[in-house]
């Protein structure tokens, strides 16, 4: 926590450089399943972010208390608890949203992104850094889900946040709302991400080799 540059780095790395979806390709199940509308995608992203932050903080606080042999079981217990909390809170906030996300709220438990951050980061780092790591990765996950959800909702239903974007009579591209649309959109985003990265890497090489 003492070094502000390191703290910022923990926050930013999950957002862009190590984006959980576009770079690490983690947590694909909710990414493909609930990104059919922008609202569902954002709600899922925020719920995951909350669980990720809380489980990172809890795991980090308890890291000297949990023996290595039972760490995975304990992490799952902690994650499942926060997922249940989120489930009740979403249910209290909106019945429609709870119905739309359905089983996928409970499935946050098995999102490998969360267990992955607990094991790889929070179990070895202090609370403050773990929180930032969780926040960064969670927001990166949100960003990815929202990119998919927005594209799929616009192309599939002609709306964004239920606001109609096209003149009446627009026929939605139904496949985009169906599961296969999730794969197409994800592929397109991955292509774009990798192209940008490759170009940037190429430019760095070009700078080092004087022409």
């Amino acid at each position, binding site marked *: 926590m003492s070094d502000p540059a390191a703290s910022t780095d923990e926050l930013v790395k999950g957002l862009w450089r190590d984006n959980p979806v576009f770079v690490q390709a983690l947590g694909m199940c909710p990414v493909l399943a609930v990104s059919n509308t922008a609202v569902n995608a954002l709600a899922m992203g925020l719920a995951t972010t909350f669980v990720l932050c809380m489980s990172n903080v809890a795991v980090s606080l308890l890291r000297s208390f949990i*023996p290595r042999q039972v760490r995975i079981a304990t992490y799952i217990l902690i994650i499942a608890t926060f997922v249940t909390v989120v489930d009740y809170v979403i249910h*209290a906030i909106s019945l429609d949203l709870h*119905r739309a996300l359905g089983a996928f709220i409970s499935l946050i438990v098995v999102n490998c992104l969360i267990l992955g951050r607990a094991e790889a980061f929070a179990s070895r780092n202090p609370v403050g850094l773990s929180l930032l790591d969780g926040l960064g990765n969670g927001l990166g996950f949100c960003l990815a889900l929202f990119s998919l959800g927005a594209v799929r909702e616009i192309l599939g239903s002609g709306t964004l946040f239920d606001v109609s974007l096209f003149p009446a009579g627009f026929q939605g591209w139904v496949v985009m709302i169906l599961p296969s649309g999730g794969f197409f959109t994800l592929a397109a985003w991955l292509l774009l991400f990798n192209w940008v990265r490759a170009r940037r890497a190429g430019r760095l090489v070009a700078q080092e080799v004087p022409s």
Partner: protein
Amino acid sequence: MTAPSDAWPMYRAMVGVGVLCGALIVTVFLATRPTIERNEAEALRAAILEVLPGSDSSRSFAWSATDARFLESAPGSRERDLVYAGYDGAGALVGVAVEAGGMGYQDRIQLLYGYAATLERIVGMRVLQSRETPGLGDRIEKDPAFLANFSDLDVALAPDGETLAHDVEAVKNGQKTEPWQVDGITGATISSEAIATIIARSASVWLPRIRAHVAEFAAEEGGAR
């Protein structure tokens, strides 16, 4: 083998974390339950008033098989076999909303329909719960042309008063010729048929009962709440 002294930290960690997690879940459950129940009651109330156009209050009634009559139940109760009577501003009965459910294309569909007993018509329908295919089957919830089927659907009883004169049935889009037919949605044939079947099955049980006992819904003195 692990000696007891090595096992102790494991028990301590797992049981300790388990107790803390349990306490947290119970706290959140107790804190959110009133809101969730209030929202659900509110959603049901809104649905009742929607499927009975012109109503602005409702009371719930339970069918008592032993007394063979409808008895008013406490507001907010979740007994089985409930129907909801809707009243207009003057306290007159508009109709009775009935909840029904059955299998759709993907999962169970739960819906509420409004029955205007004097007109012998279904005057409104709303899907309460469904997981039909997004973009195709889920149009049973929002498609205005499909929902228009249920703003005036003929469910007249046969002369004996025990069965429907004509079963509610779904037909292909654009082929509706009779007032008891439901004009289906192209691309959502199974979901459209499921809705018609759910209503037909529920109507054949409930409508003869409601029609025969319609006086019990209006009999309460003091009008509607």
